[in-house]
């Protein structure tokens, strides 16, 4: 028979693994680009904790269930609501030339798209600083 204590440990282990993987391996594209992964891990951990509570209504099983449910709700809200970006109404069209721009780089030199036209392909990255 499966002991409640083992399931509690497993539930906490799954939750901890999700946190460690997401925070420590954010530079791995597969981790960064599948944030639903941590939500799924917390859902699995919550299911395991529920079984632990059903098997033996111990205080530590209840505590684990509450903690894991908070993680599940928090992470789901963050990923599916707070982190969503409304659809951008971009003027960029595949096959078309975007309007030219001139902006300055860190050394104060102007950089424009036109200077690369006919010479070099360009990868343009719009990013928001540290995130």
């Amino acid at each position, binding site marked *: 028979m499966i002991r409640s204590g083992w399931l509690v440990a497993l539930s906490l282990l799954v939750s901890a693994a999700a946190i460690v993987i997401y925070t420590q391996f954010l530079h791995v594209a597969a981790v960064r680009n599948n944030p639903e992964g941590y939500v799924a891990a917390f859902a699995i951990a919550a299911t395991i904790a529920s079984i632990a509570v059903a098997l033996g209504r111990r205080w530590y099983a209840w505590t684990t269930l509450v903690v894991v449910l908070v993680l599940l709700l928090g992470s789901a809200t963050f990923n599916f609501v707070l982190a969503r970006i409304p659809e951008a109404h*971009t003027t960029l069209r595949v096959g078309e030339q975007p309007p030219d721009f001139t902006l300055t*780089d860190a050394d104060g030199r102007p950089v424009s798209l036109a200077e690369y036209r006919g010479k070099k392909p360009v*990868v343009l990255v719009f990013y928001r600083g540290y995130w």
Partner: protein
Amino acid sequence: MGELQGLGAALSEAEKAGVEIIAVSPDPNVRSHEMAQRLRLAYRFVADSDLAVTRRYGLVHARGGEHGEDVPTPTTVVLDRDGAVRWLWIADNFQVRPDPDDVLQAVRAL
């Protein structure tokens, strides 16, 4: 920052292939420059402080910032030698970035 780190590894290879990588951000240039040096990235960081270009390209995420300010929608665009868009990736979740391998593949396909 993880974004540029991840991208950096693949894109330094792309750079060898003769591609210019231009990173546009409202971040002050100096900060971006420091970041480039720290991560040893071969980017040209340019500042779009008032988001004028980002706005003209329709890539502003209104009030999406930490303090309710407008921020860019994370976007990666591959332009061919003639300046035409060949590949376009726009984020719908601010945690997600294009897979560097996909960007590299788009560059190689030019």
